[in-house]
């Protein structure tokens, strides 16, 4: 399943937060490579820097020093506008909560990214409905988030994340608000997406379940990579 194509590459990534009285060194030199098709989890205690790392490789934040390349491009010179475009076209996001726009239906939520990309209406609707079916929400296409369970909402989030065929999907603690049964089925579905659509997944997580499903586990501690376990190797 491993492909040599490197989707994400970081070299000596450092990030310092200077906003309160004390400077926080979130990342102290992280070197990481993510390859196409991986199903990877970043784990570590709170404060280990996993969310920060995810934000940086997700082009949401700039590192204090070091480089990060996404799909071969060095992000250091990117303007806000270019980062935004990159996120739109190449990266998919799934968050712990508040993923969806509450006033839009499941289909409209999924359509949203395609709209931003300029996909025309007919194709948008087709692809949205297709992907929702794939994640098992065929009957919920026109439902609003507040009428769905937590697990269903996360499925919609996954659908939206992969509908635009991103190079990588970044998921920040996606199972944190779900019970274990729902988590399992969500993870099952994501693994299926990984296998059928060849979508690369990078998780940031506390959840043992996620770590079990992951085929590569990167442990972070105090802003550095402590361990890098590749189960397939």
């Amino acid at each position: 399943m491993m492909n040599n194509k490197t989707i994400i590459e970081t070299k000596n990534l450092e990030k310092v937060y200077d906003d309160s009285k004390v400077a926080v060194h979130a990342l102290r030199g992280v070197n990481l490579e993510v390859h196409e098709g991986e199903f990877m989890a970043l784990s570590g205690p709170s404060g280990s820097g996993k969310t920060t790392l995810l934000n940086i490789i997700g082009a949401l934040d700039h590192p204090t020093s070091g480089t990060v390349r996404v799909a071969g491009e060095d992000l250091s010179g990117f303007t806000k506008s270019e980062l935004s475009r990159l996120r739109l076209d190449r990266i998919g996001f799934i968050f712990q909560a508040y993923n969806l726009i509450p006033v839009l239906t499941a289909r409209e939520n999924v359509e949203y990214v395609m709209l931003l990309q300029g996909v025309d209406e007919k194709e948008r609707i087709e692809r949205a409905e297709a992907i929702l079916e794939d994640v098992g929400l065929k009957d919920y296409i026109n439902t609003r988030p507040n009428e769905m369970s937590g697990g269903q909402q996360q499925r919609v989030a996954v659908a939206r994340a992969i509908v635009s065929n991103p190079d990588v999907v970044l998921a920040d603690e996606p199972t944190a608000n779900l019970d274990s049964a729902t988590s399992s089925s969500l993870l099952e579905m994501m693994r299926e997406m990984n296998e059928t659509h060849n979508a690369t997944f990078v998780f940031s997580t506390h959840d043992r379940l996620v770590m079990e499903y992951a085929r590569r586990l990167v442990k972070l501690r105090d802003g550095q990579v402590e361990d890098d376990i590749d189960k397939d190797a």
Partner: protein
Amino acid sequence: MLMTLKLAWRNIWRNKRRSAVILTAIVVGLFGMVFMIAIMKGMSVDMLKTSIENGVGHVQIHEKGFNDNMNVSLNIRDPKYVINFVEDTPSVTAYAERIKARGLVSSPKSSTGVEIWGIDHVAEPDVSAVKNYLVEGDFLTGKKGEIYVGRSLAEKLKVEKGDKIVLMGQGLATEIGAGAFRISGIFESTSKEFDKYNIYINITDAQELLSMPGRVSEIVVVTESLDHVEPVTASLKEDLEVGGLEVLPWMEVIPLMYQMISLWDAFNYIVYILVIVAMAFGIVNTILMSVLERTREIGILMAIGTKPGKVFSMVMWEGFFLGLTGLVAGWVFTMLVFAVISRTGINISIWADSLKYMGGISPIIYPVLHWNNIFGSSASVFFAAVFSAVYPAVKIMRLNPVEAFRSV
């Protein structure tokens, strides 16, 4: 674009109670503006109408200088000459000849200064409402020696219908003309002052009294509508000014009224501005809080690739839709209320005595809804809503997605 509109519209209704409250504020604001301005307009329209109907008419023609100085020597020597032109002018619906002079009227008990109107009993009812004010007896019938007086004058002079009173005025000849007249009818308008000061006799009697046979002081013209006043005046000016005559539209005859109308119209703008400001406070806070509530959601929107400009745009549209909804609801409410008060009017008779300051308008005011009012008030509401959305929109557009996630 459609998505932005869809989002904006649906976002407004996320919290129904909150939207309902702010919409109420907008409805009250709109209604308040429209109502106040319509009432004021109603009053000024009534005042103008009363003045015009009480004798000013739409256009007055005199010998040059008569309007400044009501001297009988300033009269129209050849009325027929003028009338020919008047009849040829389009949009003229009626006209009448008059003699106007100042004089003294006396009864055995009292005397007082009056304005003498020598009128054509046939033509006058088409140009003024004086005949309609009749309350006792008859209007002039053309018989010699008739006089038509106001109720408050009759009371002052202690006379009744049928009594004889003496009229005196400075005529063209050297002496003061005097004559006895019998009261044929008594009128009562909305203004006691008007009733006390103006008396009406037949024009032929006036010509005799003031020694000016065949002459008239003024020819008054009524046009199709107020909008026609200007073109008719222009046309008559062209025809008649060469002959040493003055052609005056009502604005020049009663410049005070004209000034007052523009003063009140100017006041409208103050109303708009104040209500806009009052609404803005509530709307800004409402939109601001509703936007800040969604910080995380908007952060995610930006994370997945929404440009800040789009977020800005979405919030601005929320302001727009808020304004639009408020406008619609406001007009529905306003129209309902107006449907009622347009029929009943607003009764201001407790301040009846002060009405004399306003040219004797009727004690029941009907609101008048002009296009200016409709546009001005609607625009104000829109402006308030959209303007209020700017600050929240800018604020949220500058959001850094990362910070959004860290905000608790």
